[in-house]
C-alpha cells in the first residue's frame, strides 16, 4: 500500500464563516430604501388624511380624526366626488366585462396561426404604446367631427378600451400558452360539442387567468387619466375629479380622497384573489368530501 504523508495544515479545509456575507447587508439596505421610496409618500398621504379640523397639507400632524372624510362627502366645494366615484366604478365595470369577453375570444382565436395574425397582433399592441393623452385628444376630436358630444359612457369607454384590451389580450396569451390543446381534443373525442367544450373545459380551466384579466381591466380603467381627460365630456371620472381638486382644494380632504380610492382598489384586488382562492378550495373540497 502506498502511504501518503499528509501535511497537518493542508488537511483543514477553508471553513466558510457562519452568517451572511457583507453583500447581503448592502443589498438589504438598498431594498429597504427602495420600499421606503415606493410606499413612503403614499403612507404620508394616508396619515395626513386622518388629521382633525386644524389639519393642513403638510406635516406635522394636527390631531387625529375622520373629519376630512366626512368633509369629502358632505361639502360641495370639494367637487363632485360622489358622482365621480360612481361613474368611475360603473365605467370600470363596463370596461372589465368588455375586456374579459373580447380578450377571451381573442385568446381562443390566437390558439392557432391564421393569415395576417401578426398584423392584427401589432395593431393591437400599437394602441398600447401610443401616448395616452394624444390618443384621448384624437378620440375627442373624432367625436366632435361627427357631431357627437363626448360622454364618459361612449368616448371615454372607447378610449379606455384602447388601453385595457391590449393588456387583457396579452395576459390571455400568457394564460393560453399553458393550455394544453389535447384537453380540447379529448373533449371532442368524448362527444362534447364546441359549446360544451368551451363551458365545461376551457372556461373552468382558464378561470384564474380570466379573473386576472378582469382585475387588470378594472384597475386600469379605475385610475385611467390621460385617455379619459379629453373624452369624458362634461362629467368627470374620479381621477379627473381628483386632478381638478389638486388645482383648487387646499385641505386634507384631498388626502382623504386618496385614502378612500386606495381602499377601494385593495378591496377589489382582495375580492378577485379571494374568488380564485375560493374556486380552488371548492374544487379540492368537492374532491375530498364526496
Amino acid at each position, binding site marked *: 500500500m502506498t502511504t501518503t504523508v499528509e501535511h497537518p495544515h493542508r488537511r483543514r479545509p477553508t471553513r466558510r464563516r457562519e452568517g451572511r456575507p457583507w453583500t447581503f447587508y448592502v443589498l438589504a439596505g438598498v431594498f429597504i430604501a427602495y420600499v421606503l421610496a415606493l410606499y413612503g409618500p403614499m403612507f404620508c398621504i394616508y396619515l395626513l388624511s386622518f388629521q382633525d379640523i386644524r389639519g393642513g397639507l403638510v406635516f406635522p400632524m394636527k390631531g387625529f380624526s375622520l373629519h376630512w372624510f366626512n368633509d369629502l362627502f358632505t361639502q360641495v366645494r370639494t367637487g363632485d366626488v360622489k358622482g365621480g366615484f360612481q361613474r368611475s366604478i360603473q365605467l370600470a365595470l363596463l370596461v372589465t366585462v368588455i375586456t374579459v369577453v373580447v380578450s377571451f375570444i381573442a385568446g381562443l382565436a390566437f390558439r392557432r396561426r391564421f393569415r395576417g395574425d401578426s398584423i392584427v397582433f401589432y395593431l393591437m399592441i400599437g394602441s398600447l404604446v401610443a401616448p395616452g393623452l394624444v390618443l384621448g385628444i384624437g378620440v375627442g376630436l373624432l367625436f366632435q367631427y361627427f357631431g357627437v358630444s363626448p360622454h364618459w359612457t361612449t368616448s371615454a369607454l372607447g378610449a379606455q378600451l384602447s388601453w385595457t384590451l391590449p393588456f387583457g389580450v396579452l395576459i390571455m396569451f400568457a394564460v393560453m400558452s399553458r393550455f*394544453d390543446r*389535447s*384537453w380540447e*381534443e*379529448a*373533449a*371532442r*373525442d*368524448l*362527444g*362534447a*360539442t364546441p359549446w*360544451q367544450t368551451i363551458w*365545461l*373545459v376551457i372556461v*373552468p*380551466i382558464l378561470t384564474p387567468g380570466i379573473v386576472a384579466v378582469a382585475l387588470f381591466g378594472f384597475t386600469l380603467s379605475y385610475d385611467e387619466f390621460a385617455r379619459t381627460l379629453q373624452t369624458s365630456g362634461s362629467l368627470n371620472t374620479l381621477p379627473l375629479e381628483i386632478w381638478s381638486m389638486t388645482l383648487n382644494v387646499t385641505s386634507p380632504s384631498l388626502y382623504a380622497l386618496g385614502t378612500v380610492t386606495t381602499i377601494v382598489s385593495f378591496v377589489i384586488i382582495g375580492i378577485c384573489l379571494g374568488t380564485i382562492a375560493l374556486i380552488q378550495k371548492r*374544487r*379540492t373540497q*368537492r*374532491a*375530498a*368530501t*364526496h
Partner: protein
Amino acid sequence: MSTERRQGDIELAGVGKRYDDIVAVEGINLKIPDGAYCCFLGPSGCGKTTILRMIAGHEDPTFGDILIGGENVVGMAPIERRTAMMFQSYALFPHLSVRDNIAFALRVRGVPKAERYKAADEMIEKVQLTELAHRLPGQLSGGQQQRVALARAAITGPRVLLLDEPLSALDEQLRIQMRQELRRMQQDLGITFIHVTHTQLEAIALADLVVVMERGKIKQAGGAREVYVSPHDRYVAEFLGGQNVLSGKVEKVNGASLVMRGPKLEGFEVPVAGKTAVTQGDKVDIAVRRDDIRLLRPESAAIAPGNPHLSTRVQAIEYQGYFVKVMLDAIGDDEFVAYVTERDFFSDPLKVGDIVVATWQSDHTLLLA
C-alpha cells in the same frame, strides 16, 4: 352477437396525409381484424401518430378511405365512429375529479347525474380506483392517471380504442406493469386496440399485429414473432434489433439456395425461401440472429462443413444478466454482435482483444429483400 362482434375491424385503403409540401403518410393499405391488439411501431416522425389521429377522427386524410366495421368513417366525428382515444399526456381535465372525468362523455350526452355516476363508478371499480374517485388528476401518480384515461375512454363503449404512446410518460418498472394492464384491459373489453409506440419491446410484447413504419410507409405488418424473427428488409431487422445484418454478393444461385460471399466471409449457402428473384452478382443483405452466433476459440474451432465462419476480435463485452453481449469487429460497415448465454460465456470467459471464430448454422441465415 356475430354482427356486433365484427364491428371493430379496420381497413385503411390508400390512406395518405399531406401537410402543404410534406407527405406525412403515403397511401397505405392495411387491414386490422376486430378485437386485435395492433401496434404501430416506428421512429418519431414516421407518420404513425398521424395514422392514429386519422382513425380517431382528429385529422382528415388527404386521400384514401378509412373503414371501420365496413363503414367509411372519413368526415365523421369521433363519437359517431365509436372510437375513443387515449392521449399521450392523458389529457385528463385538471379541474374535474376522477369520477367527473370518467363521467364526462355521459355528461355531454345529457345522461342524468345519478345514472352517469353509477356507470362511472362501475368503470372506476374495473380499473381499481375506487378509493381515489374524488381526487383531482393532479393528485394521482402516472400509473393511476393512465387508468383514469383508460376508463374515461372506455365508458362510451367504443369499438376501437386508440392509444398514443400510452406508456411513454411512465418510468421503466411501471411501464412493464401498465403494459400488462393494457393487455388485460383489451382482453376484458374485447375490442380493437391500436397502440402507437417507438419502443420495439413494447410492441412485440403486446401486439397481435405489429406494423413497422418508416417515413410514412408501412415496411412490414405481421405477428410479433414474424417481424422479429423474419424481418422483411434491413430497416425492419435493424429497427427491431436482435439481428446482425450483413451485406455481400451473390456468387451462384442454385434453386432453393444461393452462395454468398461477403467481406471477411467465405462463400456459404443461404436459403432463398421464396424471396425476390436474385441473380449472380447481385448485392444482397442477410440477417443472422445475434443469439444464433457461436463464438469459438481458434485453436479448438470445430466448424461443421458448409457453415459460415469468420475470424474476428472481441471489441467490448456487456453483462446483461441472463446473457452476455459480445461486440465483435464490424464487418464492413455492419455491426457484428453475439448474444452468448450467461452459463456458456462463463464456462470459458472471453476478454476484450481475444481472437475468436464466429460461426452459425447456414440455414439460420435469412435473406432480406
